[in-house]
């Protein structure tokens, strides 16, 4: 099978220092903070000390995979100051959480549906409304953007391998997501992910494991490769569960 979209890979940007400006005022399992880096870029930071190295691995690897698969995610970076060690996600202005009452005029349904395929692969069951942004544009439309992958179980590769090829349970999934008619888009994204083999995934795994100081690189690669290979069936199963919930 030839990949329809060539994998895009570039190393995660390293930021050497950050300035903390205040807490993000939403409930979150891992404390999120508005920070600036030395070049004035605006980020939302989550410290490894608060969320754990497993969550850092999940964030980094899911972000790299998202970029490779054309999933809408904010720019990402890692603060490697030993006193901070934080995952950085670019601040998205004019964004709100997903809600069924205001999720209209979505301008990127094909890309946004790929979030479902991504979550199926990394087994992320935390795609609630707080982890799905609606970013408004000047024409009144909005783009759906995925944030926060710290709870994806790819961060626990041994557990995920033991769990087998199971799809995410949608018990926390944002109400109204995905809107009707998005299934073919999610399937197309899953087909793209299924084209990523060990050779394409290895640099992503190496990069994420380096950031998270994860020693089980081979296991992470094995689990991720198996789940990408099964991306179509995992995504279809996940969508079946979503439809059964409705």
């Amino acid at each position: 099978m030839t990949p329809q979209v060539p994998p895009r890979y570039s190393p995660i940007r390293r930021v050497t220092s950050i300035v903390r400006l205040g807490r993000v005022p939403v409930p979150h399992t891992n404390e999120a903070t508005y920070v600036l880096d030395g070049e004035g870029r605006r980020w939302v930071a989550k410290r490894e000390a608060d969320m754990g190295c497993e969550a850092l691995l999940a964030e980094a690897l899911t972000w790299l995979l998202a970029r490779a698969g054309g999933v809408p995610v904010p720019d990402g970076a890692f603060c490697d100051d030993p006193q901070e060690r934080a995952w950085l996600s670019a601040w998205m202005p004019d964004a709100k959480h997903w809600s069924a009452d205001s999720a209209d005029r979505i301008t990127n349904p094909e890309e946004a549906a790929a979030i479902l395929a991504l979550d199926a692969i990394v087994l992320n069951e935390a795609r609630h409304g707080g982890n799905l942004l609606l970013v408004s544009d000047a024409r009144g439309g909005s783009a759906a953007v995925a944030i926060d992958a710290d709870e994806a179980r790819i961060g626990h590769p041994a557990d995920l391998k033991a769990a087998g090829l199971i799809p995410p349970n949608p018990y926390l999934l944002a109400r109204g997501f995905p809107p009707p008619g998005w299934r073919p888009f999610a399937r197309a994204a899953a087909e793209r992910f299924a084209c990523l083999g060990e050779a394409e995934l290895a640099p992503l795994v190496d990069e994420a494991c380096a950031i998270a100081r994860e020693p089980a690189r081979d296991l992470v690669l094995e689990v991720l490769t198996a789940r990408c290979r099964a991306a179509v069936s995992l995504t279809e199963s996940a969508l079946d569960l979503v439809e059964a919930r409705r």
Partner: protein
Amino acid sequence: MNAMRLVYYVIDPYTDERTLIAALIGQAGAVQVLRAPAPRLAPAARANVERILRDLEATQVLDPLPFGVGAQVVAGPVTALPATLTDAPAWVREVLLRSAA
């Protein structure tokens, strides 16, 4: 008891620049949303505020705010309104929202 809460849109959380977008009035177990006069905002921000107001208009309580409004919305404290008011929404419009325009 009638109560109200002012709601602000945080244009820039890094400088804490914000603008008043609405007042929520709690009366007789229901919540009414009074929109502030249209703030001067860039088009994308205005579109976001419009979506946020729709979320607010679906709420039944003053606290907490609907989760969907996201991190760019903050609210003041829930405040009791004077018991002598005969038309609380008109008073809030006149005294608070108009002066914020």
